[in-house]
């Protein structure tokens, strides 16, 4: 991730799967299903469903390393991604985590991620302080 200068939305799935190869099996299930309609897997689906489930599981297992990696990954996409990547993280990852009330994950978040969360309080009704 450090060598990347800019991440485009079209590469969103690839970037996630390279960083978290343990998601490949779940991705393959999605890929087979999307192939029924001759479409590729939409990043909002991969990130919102599979990546968020992965983070929730890591939280339940208290897997510090995975949670740190996930937090750094989210932060780097917010810093290096194009506008669609930022939408992807905010609308499908952070909203999902906020909606499920998993504020414990916020201690692995960087400044940029916390800024995004803070701005999202205009749209969603949640206790922002729990996420800072």
């Amino acid at each position, binding site marked *: 991730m450090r060598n990347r200068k800019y991440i485009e939305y079209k590469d969103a799935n690839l970037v996630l799967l390279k960083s978290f190869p343990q998601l490949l099996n779940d991705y393959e299930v999605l890929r087979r299903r*999307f192939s029924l309609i001759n479409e590729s897997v939409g990043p*909002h689906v991969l990130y919102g*469903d599979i990546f968020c489930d992965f983070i929730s599981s890591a939280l339940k297992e208290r897997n510090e390393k995975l949670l740190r990696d996930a937090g750094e990954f989210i932060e780097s996409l917010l810093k290096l991604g194009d506008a669609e990547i930022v*939408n992807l993280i905010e609308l*499908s990852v952070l909203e999902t985590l906020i909606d499920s009330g998993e504020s414990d994950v916020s201690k692995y978040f960087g400044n940029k991620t916390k800024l995004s969360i803070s701005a999202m309080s*205009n749209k969603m009704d949640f206790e922002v302080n729990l996420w800072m």
Partner: protein
Amino acid sequence: MNFLMWMSLQFKKRPNAENKELQKIYKQLWRDQDRKPGGTPGELMREVEAGDLNPRHLTKAKDRVNQLRAVLSDRNISMSRLDRKTDEGVMNDLRAGIQAAENAK
């Protein structure tokens, strides 16, 4: 959102589903903690109405329509007639928002 746009949405709040996969998708589209009603289709329509030429919810709406289409096409997924009808209604709401966004460009 103007009255006509609002009335064109079939689902102002999250619909019910027996099928767990549909429940999960609908939870992505209508958040428990949303301050405004209408979920992703409603947000998209509000963005279009505000004159946003690159509405934030457009790509998400497209990705989720494809997911709902793919679920409907998967013969391994058992789905009641009511779930199928609801799925089609949700797709219609998303497509209406997508269409409005495309027309505004």
